[in-house]
């Protein structure tokens, strides 16, 4: 069962990484980043479950990680709204070709 | 091994899940937003209520039962108010209720 969750984490990780790299929309990038971190948390928690007895240290790490993720997301969203006010677009454009 | 409480809890849980099924069916098949809200609140209120009751019957501790009661009351409040808010806003935004066209 733990092997299944490890593979699941791997699949989600790959999907999120791909989306993070290829989606131009910044809101989507932020969601991809969130899902990416969730996949990493899934790795860690499954590892904790595999240990005998249950290892609570990854749990503490993940708890810290969740809070850091939400603060990153909030700052990212605030920046995104500012960017939209400034440029009228949700994508990052290179400054030289337009 | 199985006590009466366990059996009662299981029966209540099954009944609750049936309400969830009905709610999902309604959400899928009903024609407009207002009727879908109607279907959804059945799942929220009765389905979860029955499952909470089933869990409370099995827990055998008053504190846990009270906590489960609190869960149910909170979901009732949120579902009822949420349904009302969504319906009112939808109405104000001009989404017209479905009417049979003859």
């Amino acid at each position, binding site marked *: 069962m733990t092997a299944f969750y490890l593979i699941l984490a791997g699949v989600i990780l790959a999907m999120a990484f791909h989306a993070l790299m290829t989606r131009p929309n910044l809101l989507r990038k932020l969601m991809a980043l969130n899902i990416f971190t969730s996949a990493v948390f899934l790795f860690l928690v499954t590892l904790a479950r595999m240990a005998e007895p249950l290892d609570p240290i990854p749990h503490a790490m993940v708890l810290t990680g969740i809070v850091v993720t939400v603060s990153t997301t909030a700052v990212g969203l605030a920046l995104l709204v500012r960017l939209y006010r400034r440029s009228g677009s949700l994508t990052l454009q290179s400054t030289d070709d337009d | 091994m199985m006590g009466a409480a366990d059996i009662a809890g299981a029966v209540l849980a099954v009944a609750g899940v049936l309400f969830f099924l009905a709610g999902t069916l309604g*959400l899928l098949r009903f024609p407009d*937003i207002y009727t*879908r809200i109607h279907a*959804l609140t059945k799942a929220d209120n009765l389905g979860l209520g029955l499952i909470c009751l089933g869990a409370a019957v099995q*827990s055998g501790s008053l504190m*846990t039962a009270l906590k*489960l009661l609190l*869960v149910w009351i909170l979901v009732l409040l949120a579902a009822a108010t949420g349904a009302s808010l969504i319906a009112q806003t939808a109405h104000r935004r001009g989404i017209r209720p479905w009417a049979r066209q003859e």
Partner: protein
Amino acid sequence: MTTLYFILVGVLMGNIAVGLIRILRGPTAADRMLAAELFGTVTVAIILLLAIVMEKPVYYDVALVFALLSALAVVAFVTRGWPNPEPGEQDDGRR
């Protein structure tokens, strides 16, 4: 007994899977939000059933926090997230 509960949890998961169709089809944002609300309640139910099966009353607290926070999602949607104006809402509300 455990098997019965796992079947019930499986049925509830099936509910979520079917509810995804409503998210996909919409047509209005409110319909999608309704599906999300259903998911929230179903999740609470799943966690309650898992708590019974695993005999860990700790998870009732998780259900409690979920029940509290379900209000936040709906209110945030109605006051801030509802797209304005809704596309195609003027012609009719059906699909």
